[in-house]
């Protein structure tokens, strides 16, 4: 971040703030002294090689991993000070694919997104059902309504989980590899959905992506995470330079830029 000389302009108070956060599993340090500030309504992609610490950063943000040092703040409050339900009303996480213990319909799964808003006794109210219906509509799941979620393809299941996170209606949406099982059409659909969420609802979007082209095309801000550090932070054109990609991923970026749908000119 600092090596690029990016200066944070005074703007709205950050919705997410990492202050020299060190994250470790046991004694093994994954992330070292990371600083990061995200303003409300930003769209941020995290890219970097496997094991670099991207998911670990997200785990700290969602309160699943307490920092070994430093502080993670959401809305100006330490994440550790939120109870789980309060945090779930602020951050929606697209869940990882899981084996369902019982058969469940698509709409049953999407409805789980309303749990943080639900009254323990009365259960879902009409507003909750409306939010579920709208989320399914936005992701285009109408045709899957009534289907057993266990019969769906991996890609379809991933879309169901995206709809769940949208139904959660949180100001921050976090996605860890949301497109791995999706075909090209649905990758673009999900990306455009994120842009739409961001534009229409002002949702702050944080996504771990492996596809640098998707990151470059749909995210105004890209974080390159490498070796437990935030190696670069800024607009994709500044951050995803050929030299850095070669450095971080050890791959010749010519192949990547050559992809037909890339908005980044091939001669970069």
């Amino acid at each position, binding site marked *: 971040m600092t090596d690029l000389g990016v200066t944070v302009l005074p703007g709205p108070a950050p919705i997410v703030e990492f202050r020299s956060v060190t994250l470790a599993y046991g004694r093994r340090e994954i992330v070292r002294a990371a600083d990061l500030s995200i303003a409300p309504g930003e769209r941020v992609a995290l890219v970097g090689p496997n094991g670099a610490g991207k998911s670990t950063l997200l785990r700290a943000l*969602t*309160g*699943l991993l307490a920092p070994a040092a430093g502080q993670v703040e959401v809305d100006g409050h330490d994440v550790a000070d939120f*109870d*789980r*339900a*309060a*945090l*779930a*009303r602020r*951050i*929606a*996480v697209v*869940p*990882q694919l*899981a084996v*369902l*213990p*019982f*058969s*469940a*319909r698509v709409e*049953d*799964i999407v*409805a*789980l*997104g309303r*749990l*943080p808003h*639900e009254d*323990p*006794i009365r*259960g*879902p109210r009409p507003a909750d059902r409306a939010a579920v*219906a709208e989320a*399914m*509509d936005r992701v*285009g799941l*109408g*045709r*899957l*309504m*009534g289907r*057993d979620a*266990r*019969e769906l393809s991996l890609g379809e299941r991933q879309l169901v*989980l995206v709809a769940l996170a949208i139904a*959660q209606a949180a100001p921050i949406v976090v996605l860890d590899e949301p497109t791995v099982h999706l075909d090209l059409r649905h990758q673009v659909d999900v990306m455009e959905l994120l842009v739409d969420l961001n534009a229409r609802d002002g949702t702050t979007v944080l996504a771990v992506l492996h596809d640098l082209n998707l990151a470059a095309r749909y995210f105004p801000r890209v974080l390159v995470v490498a070796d437990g550090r935030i190696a670069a932070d800024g607009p994709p054109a500044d951050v995803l330079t050929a030299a850095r990609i070669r450095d971080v991923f050890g791959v010749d970026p010519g192949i990547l830029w050559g992809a037909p749908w890339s908005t980044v000119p091939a001669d970069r």
Partner: protein
Amino acid sequence: MTAASAGFGAARARTRRSLLREGARRHPRALFGAVAAALAALAVLAVGFGTVAIAPETTMAIVLHRVLGLETGATWSAASETIVWDLRIPRVLTAAMVGAALAVAGATFQGLLRNPLADPYVLGTASGAALGAAVALLIPVRIVVVEFGLVHAFAFVGALLAITVVYRLSRLSAWSGMTSLLLTGYAVGSLLAAGLAMAMYLSGATLRQIFAFLLGGFEAATWPRLAIALPLVVFGTAGILWRARVLNGLMLGEEAAAHLGVDVRRERAILLALGSLVTAAAVAVSGLIGFVGLVVPHVIRLVVGPSARAVLPLSIVVGACLLVLADLGARLLGDIPVGVVSALVGAPFFLFLLRRAQSGYEL
């Protein structure tokens, strides 16, 4: 929106049977009411059946007289009143309570462990209760603890001790929460089963009584025992119903549940305690009755879907119906153990269910 309504239309059009199921899914409360009414009718009938037949209207009259002091103009013999009020009603109510308790506990453990094969006994409560009862039977002195009986008290304590040990040990393991609980439960259960086998080997003349406990039954049902067990079951069940949200959240795994606002560690401990309390109270009055806790929640999920908000309340009434019916069957067949009847009905039904489950549970 058109796509959504087209989806609805397609689902609705499938078959008439799915239409019925659609209704049950949309209106679990109506289904609950219908089953509860069936349960009440069944209970009145069950009180009437037996070596001395008693007409349903006589049963009602006696109940109204004893509970509300109402005189309906009907007359009955003192013997009928003793049979109805002191023997059969506590027995039928105990059967209903135990059925409800085991079904709710089963639904809880299945949801908590994310395992469709879990039942109330899976984490060692059964072996603990059985060993407790066996130990009590082997003690040569007969003590009655507030009318509850030493066997019942020991079974209750044994079940709760077993689950406590399992929970404590599971937290030492490197496995993730639920897996560790299941594996530890299996290990501790085997250990206790070995103890039980030893107790049975040493038991001599009391072997028959230990065996009766293992098979389960409601012959020992009395008002005082019901009065002790019922508040525990009601308390535990209410606590579980309050946490339906948690069980729903766990459907996608522990991490997803945490992201949906569930404090997984804390809620797991609470649900485990409540489910075990309910199981222990049921087992203490009736011995080990199998299949209710495993099968009933699955049957209900087949009809209304997986939401714990619908599955838990329906488990109460369906579980109660099933054991009232099983007990009735047991009495009509000459007082064979109710565990035999519930297993005879439950096992083939479960096999049938497993066949269905291959096609993703669709009926």
